[in-house]
C-alpha cells in the first residue's frame, strides 16, 4: 500500500513539474487532458458508483463557466470569488434538478439528462446579463502554467474524493444503489439523499473545470459552455478506463486524449467518430474497462474478450 502511495505521489509530482520542463503546446494539451480527466472522474461518482448514466453533466460544467464569467464580468470580482460563485450555482442547480430527476430510473433518467443540456443552453441564451447568444468576454490572464496547476489540483482533489467514496460508508451506499436500489432502501440507505449528494459532488467538480476553462479561454458562449461533445467524452473515457474504480477514469481519459490528439492532427471529425466506436467496442468486449482488462487478460488471454462478447448475446 505504501509503495502504491509513493508511486501516486511521484506521478503527481512529475505531472506538476511539466510546465517547468515541457513546451508551451505540451502545457496547453495538458490543461485540456487534465480537465477532461477531472470531468470523467466527476462523472464516475454518479455514473460509475451510483449507476445513474448521466448524459447531461456538461450542464454543470457550463453553469460553472457561466457563474465564474458572470461574477467576473458583471460583478468585477476576482477569479477565486468567481469560481466560488460558479460552483455554488452548479451545486444549487444540481440540488434543484436533482429532486425531480433523480426520482427517475434507467432510461428515464438518461433521457431527462439528455434534455437538460439543451434546455439549459436555451435558458442561458435568453438572459441579458449572461450575454445572450453572443457570450461573455473575460479579463485576459496570460499564464498557462497557473491553469495547468489548477487543473492538476482539481483532478487530484476529485480523485481523492472518489478514493474516499470507494472506501467509505457513503460509497458503499452508492454501490448498493447501483446494484439494487430497492434493496438498498430497505436496508436503510437514505437513497434520495445519497443520490442527491452524489449529483451535487459531481456538479461541484464539473463546475470548477468549467470555471477554469472559462478564464483560460477568456470567452464563453452557450454553444461552447454547454458543448455536448464534452458529455460524450466524459462518459466514454470513464467507461473505457473502468467505471466505478478510482483510477479508471484517469487511465481512460489520458489514453483516449492521447489517441484522439494523434487522430485529430489528421482529421478532427474522425477523432470524434472514433470515440463512438471505442464505447461500442468497450461495452461489448471489456465491460470492466482497462482496469479489469489486465486481470481478465492474464487469466483467460483472448478468451476474456470472447467470453464478454458471448455473455449477453441473444
Amino acid at each position, binding site marked *: 500500500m505504501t509503495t502504491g502511495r509513493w508511486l501516486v505521489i511521484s506521478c503527481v509530482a512529475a505531472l506538476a513539474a511539466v510546465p517547468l520542463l515541457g513546451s508551451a503546446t505540451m502545457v496547453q494539451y495538458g490543461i485540456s487532458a487534465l480537465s477532461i480527466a477531472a470531468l470523467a472522474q466527476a462523472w464516475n461518482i454518479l455514473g460509475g458508483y451510483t*449507476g445513474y*448514466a448521466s*448524459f447531461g453533466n456538461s450542464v454543470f460544467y457550463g453553469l460553472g463557466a457561466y457563474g465564474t464569467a458572470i461574477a467576473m464580468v458583471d460583478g468585477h470580482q476576482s477569479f477565486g470569488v468567481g469560481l466560488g460563485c460558479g460552483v455554488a450555482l452548479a451545486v444549487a442547480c444540481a440540488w434543484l434538478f436533482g429532486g*425531480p*430527476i433523480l*426520482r*427517475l*430510473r*434507467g*432510461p*428515464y433518467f*438518461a*433521457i*431527462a439528462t*439528455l*434534455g*437538460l443540456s*439543451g*434546455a439549459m443552453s*436555451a*435558458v442561458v*441564451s*435568453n438572459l441579458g446579463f449572461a450575454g445572450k447568444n453572443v457570450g461573455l468576454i473575460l479579463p485576459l490572464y496570460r499564464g498557462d502554467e497557473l491553469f495547468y496547476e489548477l487543473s492538476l489540483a482539481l483532478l487530484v482533489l476529485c480523485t481523492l474524493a472518489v478514493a474516499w467514496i470507494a472506501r467509505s460508508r457513503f460509497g458503499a451506499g452508492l454501490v448498493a444503489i447501483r446494484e439494487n436500489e430497492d434493496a438498498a432502501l430497505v436496508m436503510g440507505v437514505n437513497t434520495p439523499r445519497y443520490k442527491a449528494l452524489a449529483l451535487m459532488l459531481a456538479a461541484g467538480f464539473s463546475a470548477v473545470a468549467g470555471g477554469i476553462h472559462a478564464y483560460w479561454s477568456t470567452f464563453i458562449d452557450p454553444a461552447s459552455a454547454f458543448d*455536448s461533445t464534452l458529455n*460524450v467524452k466524459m*462518459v*466514454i473515457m470513464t*467507461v473505457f478506463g473502468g467505471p466505478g474504480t478510482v483510477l479508471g477514469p484517469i487511465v481512460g481519459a489520458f489514453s483516449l486524449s492521447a489517441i484522439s490528439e494523434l487522430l485529430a492532427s489528421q*482529421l478532427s*471529425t*474522425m477523432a*470524434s*467518430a472514433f*470515440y*463512438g*466506436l*471505442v*464505447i*461500442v467496442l468497450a*461495452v*461489448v468486449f471489456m*465491460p470492466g474497462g482497462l482496469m479489469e482488462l489486465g486481470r481478465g487478460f492474464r487469466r483467460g488471454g483472448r478468451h476474456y474478450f470472447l467470453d464478454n*462478447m458471448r*455473455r*449477453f*448475446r*441473444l
Partner: protein
Amino acid sequence: MHLAAQILLNGILLGGLYGLMALGMGLVWGVLNIVNLAHGAFIMLGGYAVYYCYAGLGIDPFAALPIAMVGLFCLGYLVQRFVLSLIARAALLSTLLVTFGIDVVLTYLALFAFSADFRTINPSYAGDHFDLGGLTVPLAQLGAFATALVLAGGLRMFLARTRTGRAIRATAQNLTAARLHGINPRRIYPLSFGIGTALAGAAGGLYGVVSQVTPYMGNTLTAKSFVIAILGGLDRPLGVIAGGVALGIAEATTDIYLDPTYRNAIGFGMLVGILVLRPTRLFERA
C-alpha cells in the same frame, strides 16, 4: 382567437411528424427493451437520404421516402444483427452506452460526409399554401402530416393483422412465452429494429421538407421521440401520433407567446413533468 387557431393548426401539423419519429423509438423500446439513443441519428440519415435523392437525382421528396425507408431498414437490420444482438441480454446501462456510441459514430460520419451545412429540401411546392376558413394551411406540412398518419395506420394494421406483426407483439409482451410458441427472437429483433429505423428515416425525410437537416439534429429529436413515446403509450401507434400532436401544440404555443429558443426547454419540461407524475407506468421490466 384567429391566432390561437392558427397556432393550433401549425402545432398539429408539426406534431404529426413528431409522432412519426416517436413511433419507431416506441416500437424498438417495446420489443427489444432498448432505449435507442441513436434514434435521432437514424432520423438525420433519413433526412440526408431524401435530400440527396432530391438534390442529386431530382426525385420528389415524397417519392423518395420509400427509398430512404428501404435504405434505413437495411442499415437498422444490420446494426441490430451485428452489434445490438451482442448485448441483447445485458443490463440497461450497457444498451444505453452502446446506442449512445452508435449515435456518436453516425453523427460524426455524417458530419464528415455531408458537412455541417444546413440542408433544406425545397420542392417547387414548398412555400405553397391554401386558405381554409381564414386559416393558412401550408401544403408541405399537410403532406407530411398525412404521410405520418398513413404510416402510423399502416404500422397498426401490420402489427394487428399480419402473422409477423403478431409475432412482434407477442415478443414485446412476453419473450419466453413467444419463444415457446416457436417465435425466433433472432428473426424478430432485427426486423423490429429495421422497421423502427425505417420509420425514423421517413420522419427524417419529412422533417427535411418542413425544417432543416444538419448532422447535429439527432439529440433533441431523440429526446422528443422519447417524451412522445411515453405520452402516447408504446403499443398504440395512433396514440403515439396523438402524443406528438400534444408536443407540437405545446411548442407552437411557446414559439408565439414566449420565444422560439425555449422550444427545447418546453420539451424537457414536459418530459420531466410527465415522468415525475407517472414514472412507472410503462414497460418496467424487472
